[in-house]
């Protein structure tokens, strides 16, 4: 059997975008759980990072009494500014690990719930790669939503708590560019975690024989 143009099955990216977007929109509350995992983990990371950013930008202009109170609150100042100590780095890594495990679990459950749907799509002529593509794009959407909401939340909480602890001098030196950077980083991280979490379940689902997938309970 040759592979002439007629004999191809295709799924253009425009369609992948449309299908996965509708999928998320219709399953909004169901996918909220996965997204919430991301939001909270990213919020924590963004909270710690932005706290360090703010302190780094406040420190040079701070009065000595302010500097004293910052140090006595438990923030460690290392050569690279705040947030460089092993303890801080460990905390960040741990929170990310917990996040990844949570996402993998949530995505595994979400994909299992859709085995029937996947079997059906394959009966209509979808290749394995179509199924994987749709799930990957859904994971990207969830990553973006979780990442942006999480970093906004984290930055907000960090700013407010520092203001409460050290007063309004924080506001004058608030590093706008630094915050934007943090948000971009955190969102990118969320998308990456989301993709890591969905890859294995999506591959498993895509490779099932349609007859087996259709037997799954819904």
């Amino acid at each position, binding site marked *: *059997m040759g*592979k002439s143009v007629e*004999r*191809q*099955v*295709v*799924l*253009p990216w425009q*369609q992948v975008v449309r299908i996965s977007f*509708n*999928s998320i929109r*219709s*399953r909004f509350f169901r996918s909220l759980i996965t997204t919430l995992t991301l939001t909270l983990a990213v919020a924590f990371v963004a909270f710690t990072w932005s706290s360090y950013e703010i302190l780094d930008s406040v420190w040079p202009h701070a009065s000595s009494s302010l500097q004293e109170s910052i140090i006595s609150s438990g923030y460690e100042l290392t050569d690279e500014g705040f947030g460089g100590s092993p303890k801080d780095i460990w905390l960040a890594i741990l929170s990310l690990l917990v996040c990844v495990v949570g996402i993998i679990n949530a995505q595994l459950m979400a994909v299992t719930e859709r085995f*029937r*749907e996947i*079997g*059906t*799509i*394959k*009966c*209509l*002529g*979808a*290749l*394995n790669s*179509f199924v994987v593509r749709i799930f990957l794009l859904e994971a990207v959407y969830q990553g973006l939503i979780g990442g942006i909401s999480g970093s906004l939340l984290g930055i907000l909480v960090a700013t407010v708590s520092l203001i409460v602890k050290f007063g309004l001098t924080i506001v004058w030196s608030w590093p706008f560019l630094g915050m934007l950077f943090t948000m971009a980083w955190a969102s990118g991280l969320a998308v990456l975690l989301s993709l890591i979490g969905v890859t294995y379940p999506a591959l498993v689902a895509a490779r099932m*024989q*349609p*007859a*087996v997938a*259709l037997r799954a309970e819904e």
Partner: protein
Amino acid sequence: MYQEAHNVVRLSEVTKTFRMGNNIVEALKGVDLTVKTGEYLSIMGPSGSGKSTLFNMIGALDKPSSGRVFIDEVDVAQLDAYELAWLRCRKIGYIFQTFNLIQVMTAMENVTLPMVFAGMTRDEYTEKGMELLRLVGLAERYQHKPSELSGGQQQRVAIARSLANDPAIVLADEPTGNLDLATGEEIIYLLKQLSSERGVTIISATHDIKMLNVSDRVIWIRDGRIDRIEDRDKLKISVGEVA
């Protein structure tokens, strides 16, 4: 329109065994079958007779343990993933007992999904989708999701979907299984109408007696083997003693 009848589906000594833990279940014990183009064929048998397994073999949804399945004289086992996908997209349409519509998509999106895979443009598939929905009498419901449709309506959408790419074969696995008597009759009548108007071969696995009236041939399957094959004329006589 007289078409030279050829074998659109052919099974040759097909067996299928399942391993459930330590038990071996022989769902099919050697089935030979030929189906001619344009036929309306029913596979009938009690639960556990191997009906659904046979259905899966014919529809290339599962592989036989031994024996060969030919669709249009092409051995299905020799096909790679791309060719199988092409087969399911263009040559075969599927209808299931549980409808199996995508819950998050509207009726129109469900019907046109196979057309998307076949590479049709948005204008093309929108037009064809509406035409198919009109054919099954659901043109006004094209924006509705499956949850907003009754069982009969969902099955109609499934039928429209199965015709999306003008397949040669439509496979129906217990199409009336989840429907009440009246709706079931409507669906059977619709399938027969489509079969005669479009010349598409319909193979349905069922234990619904109402299907007997519309079938050209009936294959009775029992215990993984074909019990007997009956033509329509013979059926009328023996319907009183349905096994």
